[in-house]
């Protein structure tokens, strides 16, 4: 009987960690949708994150058909029908649950660190990186490359999109900004800015809705996989309603929290944003995210949005792009997969060495210590909705005297 209790506790740990990841996914990505609107004053900071949170919640509930095989493109933990491979399912899926737990913890720790540094890195890449690391550590197979018939594997699903998406989005936003800036150059700014405000709000809403649909699905898939591994759920073409509800609420709550450090980098750090430029960047982000979703080439929302903002700075005559900030951001993109992978592998190794119930509990404790420590650190130079729009002063930190 005790063994059953222990594996149930591990399952609860996995679900809690997955929701924690979903929550970080929310606040890490809020800036993608709303940073330009906040920068231009199209929306007040609190209103912007509230709108984005509601759209994420709606988007998550639009996820009617959740693909259980969402991690199949990079790791081989599941059969083609979505069920976990047999060698991981013994003893209430003990082996599978430890891999998922370690991978999630790796993803969360990297998401928290990049948030602390104010760097917009991809939450999906952090999740996949963590899972890849934990999978490798556990001696299971990772799908580095597809079989050549479709875009698949780490190369096709992560590396290629990561290289190409900022370039595509940046180019489109640069062209849009350049043309739009010339179209309205000698016009009544008060009137044009009022118009662009609505364009920004519309585009930001679309990006948030798409984010809720795409990203909440990943956590829903991971939790359901854990439930199947544990043995309390068997269907592979539907997910429990409660999983959908808690995932939707977690991502929306995270979004509402705001992730102000990242919003600050995106709205003030890369380039100062004017209304027409903000509308062009938002429009380009929304179009590229939806076009890639439609064409089956999954791009990272974060990289598209950052690329668009950067491109809009290149395209606006007279704008001054801070390339040092952009360089740090690109460095974070390049390191996300290996860094989250290393963290995931380390967590799996710790969990495996200790074994039984102690392993997962220690991994959970390390997560809480790490996340708590980074949260504590963030309080020293807190960025909030009060000071998110302060003049950029060389870094995401806001001078102490300015903090309200």
């Amino acid at each position, binding site marked *: 009987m005790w063994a059953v209790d222990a594996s149930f506790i591990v399952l609860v740990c996995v679900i809690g960690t997955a929701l924690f990841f979903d929550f970080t996914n929310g606040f890490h990505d809020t800036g993608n949708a709303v940073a330009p609107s906040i920068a231009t004053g199209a929306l007040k900071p609190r209103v912007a994150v509230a709108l984005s949170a509601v759209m994420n919640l709606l988007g998550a509930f639009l996820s*009617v058909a959740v693909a259980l095989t969402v991690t199949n493109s990079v790791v081989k933990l599941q059969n083609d029908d979505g069920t976990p491979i047999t060698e991981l399912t013994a003893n209430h899926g003990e082996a599978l649950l430890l891999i998922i737990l370690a991978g999630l913890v790796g993803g969360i720790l990297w998401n928290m660190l990049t948030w602390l540094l104010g760097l917009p890195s991809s939450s999906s890449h952090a999740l996949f990186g963590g899972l890849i690391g934990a999978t490798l550590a556990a001696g299971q197979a990772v799908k580095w490359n597809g079989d050549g018939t479709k875009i698949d594997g780490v190369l*096709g699903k992560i590396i290629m999109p990561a290289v190409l998406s900022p370039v595509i989005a940046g180019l489109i936003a640069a062209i849009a900004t350049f043309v739009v800036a010339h179209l*309205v150059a000698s016009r009544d700014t008060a009137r044009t800015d009022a118009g662009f405000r609505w364009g920004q709000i519309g585009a930001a809403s679309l990006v948030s809705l798409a984010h809720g649909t795409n990203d909440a699905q990943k956590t829903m898939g991971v939790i359901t996989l854990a439930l199947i591994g544990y043995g309390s759920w068997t269907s592979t073409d539907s997910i429990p309603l409660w999983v959908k509800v808690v995932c939707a609420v977690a991502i929306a709550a995270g979004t509402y929290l705001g992730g102000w450090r990242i919003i600050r980098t995106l709205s003030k750090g890369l380039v100062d944003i004017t209304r027409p430029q903000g509308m062009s960047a938002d429009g380009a982000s929304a*179009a590229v995210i939806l076009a890639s979703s439609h064409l089956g080439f999954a791009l990272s929302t974060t990289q598209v949005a950052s690329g668009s903002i950067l491109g809009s700075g290149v395209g606006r005559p007279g704008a001054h792009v801070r390339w040092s900030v952009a360089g740090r951001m690109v460095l974070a993109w390049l390191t996300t997969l290996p860094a989250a992978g290393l963290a995931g592998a380390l967590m799996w190794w710790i969990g495996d060495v200790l074994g039984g119930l102690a392993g997962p509990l220690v991994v959970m404790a390390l997560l809480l210590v790490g996340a708590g420590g980074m949260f504590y650190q963030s309080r020293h130079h807190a960025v909030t909705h009060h000071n998110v729009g302060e003049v950029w002063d060389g870094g995401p930190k806001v001078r102490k005297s300015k903090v309200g």
Partner: protein
Amino acid sequence: MDTVRLAVEAAWKVLYVGLLLGAGLPIMFALGVRLLAGPAPEGDDAPAYRPGPGSRLLAWLCFAVVAYGVLVGLLVIIGAGQGKVVSFEHVFPTLVPKG
């Protein structure tokens, strides 16, 4: 390296469609905004600008094109939630099963 080739092919498509919509729709929107805005006022007491009926018609046509783009975007999102894709086969976009 078939994966690289497939990914680059897909990326080109995203670039084409992205340019058409991601640059095209903001430009259409800006055109509508420009048509309604009038020139920059020269003094504080300049009379309020009233766009002519032609400008207003053109502006709302621009906004209608953008609204159509937003509708298609919404369909793509709803489709992604249901495991479906948007088909343009019957002129007006409809959701069809993936595959």
